[in-house]
């Protein structure tokens, strides 16, 4: 039996187009009803038990301090959130960069024809992939960072340029010069980069010599900024031990240090597997063709296989980046002032828990969505155009 007679429209309740729409609307209505019910329930019950839900606390003074931040106990709570947000971003960005590098190296290592290298890489992956991150972080903080870095009284100061102690690692840092002059120098550098890139591209197109645009343009930017900053009277502050603390330079916090190490080691073990899988997903013929052209092992990997493998790797890598960002909240247990920690402290000092933690959730959702957006854009740009 055929479903419709030729010519006549089926009745509405059997029209597939209508049914499709009706079904979608229905699902939407059900979800909306459930959400509305939950929200209403939440509102009624919080009101009935007097749980505060207003966000007025954001303008109240924090009454606590955050080391390393320009921040007094009278600053409003919202400033503390900003510091926490920046710290979460800081550890995430550093962690993502380092984890990607380490993970790629180990992922390639697993496929190495050198038996020792491939076994060691496999052992690394199997060990760190199977450890709970919190245990790893606790071990690195208490057992490695605090143990192996010397106490402040006997801090190690190589060349008087660096200070190593378990109260922080002091690194030379630039002395601030006026913002506008630096911006001007930066603009010159960027324009210069762009011009150089254009010039090198035309050279490449005409002669076929490698363009090296990034190397030369980037180099120009770095040199310009360095020179400009010296011209405008910038200088470097060197870290030193001042009594029981580190003064001058910039201080890398032991908790930041431990958190970055733990996140990088852990996430790299996952990234390594992604990289390995992606390399293996590149058709074998590509590598063989590269060998046939007498490319060296490095050239084969760097110019032929990795660019194709990375395309495949982008979506799962994005997942790992999201994991790393969310896992950075574990730093709250080790006196790292990320969003989670700031939220906990401000709740302990009188901010209402429900809205305070709601804000923290919101921050994580936004950071994750923005990261996903970047990953999707990258994926769109780099994916193979198939014809």
């Amino acid at each position, binding site marked *: *039996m055929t479903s419709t007679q030729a010519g006549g429209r089926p009745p509405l309740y059997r029209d597939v187009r209508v049914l499709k729409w009706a079904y979608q609307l229905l699902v939407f209505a059900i979800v909306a009803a459930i959400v509305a019910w939950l929200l209403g329930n939440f509102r009624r019950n919080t009101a009935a038990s007097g749980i505060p839900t207003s966000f007025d606390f954001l303008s109240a003074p924090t009454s606590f301090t955050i080391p390393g931040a320009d921040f007094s106990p009278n600053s409003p709570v919202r400033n503390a959130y900003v510091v926490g947000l920046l710290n979460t971003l800081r550890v995430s960005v550093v962690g993502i960069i380092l984890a990607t590098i380490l993970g790629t190296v180990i992922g390639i290592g697993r496929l190495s024809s050198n038996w020792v290298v491939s076994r060691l890489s496999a052992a690394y992956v199997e060990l760190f992939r199977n450890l709970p991150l919190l245990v790893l972080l606790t071990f690195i903080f208490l057992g490695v960072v605090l143990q192996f870095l010397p106490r402040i009284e006997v801090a190690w100061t190589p060349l008087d340029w660096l200070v190593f102690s378990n109260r922080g690692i002091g690194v030379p840092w630039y002395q601030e010069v006026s913002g506008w002059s630096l911006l001007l120098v930066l603009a010159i550098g960027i324009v210069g980069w762009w011009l150089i890139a254009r010039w090198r591209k035309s050279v490449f197109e005409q002669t076929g010599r490698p363009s090296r645009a990034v190397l030369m343009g980037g180099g120009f930017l770095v040199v310009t900024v360095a020179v400009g900053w010296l011209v405008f009277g910038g200088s470097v502050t060197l870290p030193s031990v001042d009594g029981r603390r580190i003064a001058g330079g910039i201080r890398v916090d032991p908790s930041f240090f431990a958190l970055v190490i733990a996140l990088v080691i852990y996430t790299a073990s996952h990234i390594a597997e992604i990289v390995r899988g992606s390399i293996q997903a590149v058709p074998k013929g590509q590598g063989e063709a590269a060998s046939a052209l007498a490319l060296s092992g490095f050239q084969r990997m760097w110019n032929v296989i990795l660019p194709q493998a990375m395309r495949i790797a982008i979506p799962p890598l994005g997942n790992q980046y999201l994991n790393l960002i969310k896992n950075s909240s574990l730093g709250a247990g080790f006196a790292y002032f990320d969003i989670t920690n700031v939220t906990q402290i401000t709740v302990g000092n009188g901010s209402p828990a429900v809205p305070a933690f709601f804000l923290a959730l919101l921050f994580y959702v936004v950071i994750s969505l923005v990261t996903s957006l970047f990953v999707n854009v990258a994926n769109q740009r780099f994916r193979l155009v198939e014809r």
Partner: protein
Amino acid sequence: MKVTKLMAALVALTLVFAACTAEDGDETTTSGATDTTGNGNGNGDGEGGSLLDEVQERGELNCGTRDAFPGFAVLTAEGDHVGFDSDFCRVIAAAVLGDAEAVNHVDLETTDRFTALQSRQIDVLVRNTTWTAGRDGTEGATFLTVNYYDGQGMMVNTGDFESINDMDGVVICVAAGTTTEGNAAAEAARLGLDWEVRPFPDTDQLQGAFLEGACDGWSSDTSQLTGFRSVYPDGPDALTILPEVFSKEPLAPAVLDGDIAWAQAVNWAILATIQAEEFGITSENVDDFLDSDDVNIRRFLGLEFEDDEGNLTTFDSALGLPLDFAYQVISQVGNYEEIFDRHLAPLGLERGVNALWSDGGLMYAPPYRP
């Protein structure tokens, strides 16, 4: 054809189901809301809705503590909850239920404690919690009689510092999520000292950092410092608690706002321990007082006494507690002094301001009489 039919049936079914859910939802919401209001407004005329009835019906007290404060509450290897706070949970259970062991000790982190109270996960919070105006107000908690007057102090490695005033340009580690960070920041500002305050949510991490020399000072409530000092890996003598106390930390049990009947019941359970000490009644000798002639004591223990007309009568405070609640508290848990001596004295804590008012302290129970 068949497929379309099936789909239509499915849609119809979903519709019905959705209608059901919506109805159910409404019902649940309404009843939930009514319940809540009932609970919130229970006002002690015993007409249901008070947590007091609910706890007595349940036969168990949900008491919020923290199993990580030596002296106040720790979980032993045998699974017993031992400490000053744990014992006050037992005091409340003995008074309300007549059984000191009918307690469900709920282990709470600093940041969850008020939410646990607000969401009724616990009936009462006895967790080293400082009574402050803000908590009384915004957190919707009602604080009851203070059972320990504490103050924030500073612990350092023995020999490093003699006084807080010497501590300039130092790193201070504190327990996070409490009033300690705020107190430390305020004290540093008041003394004009430069302190870098690092908060650790977990004591294990804090102790680890302190042991490795990452902090110069360890600041917390003096009672807690004394507790941590007593179990310090390098021995208690390696640490010194500086003489300065720079905050008021009245530690008091808390219940949820709006349930006067429950608040009063818990309050009088705690006061009974203080009153018992004042009378000199202990868990050892409480039975000797059963034939006491003192009408105050007979009232307190729920015993019969002669009224003005010579009739035998008992005193019912109408607090909703059993007549013999004080007897149960004292016989099963003990008076304030016994609880203090059992858990806090071994740490080296003195009674100090926590002595009875008659000994110059702050512990004072209103009279138990009509």
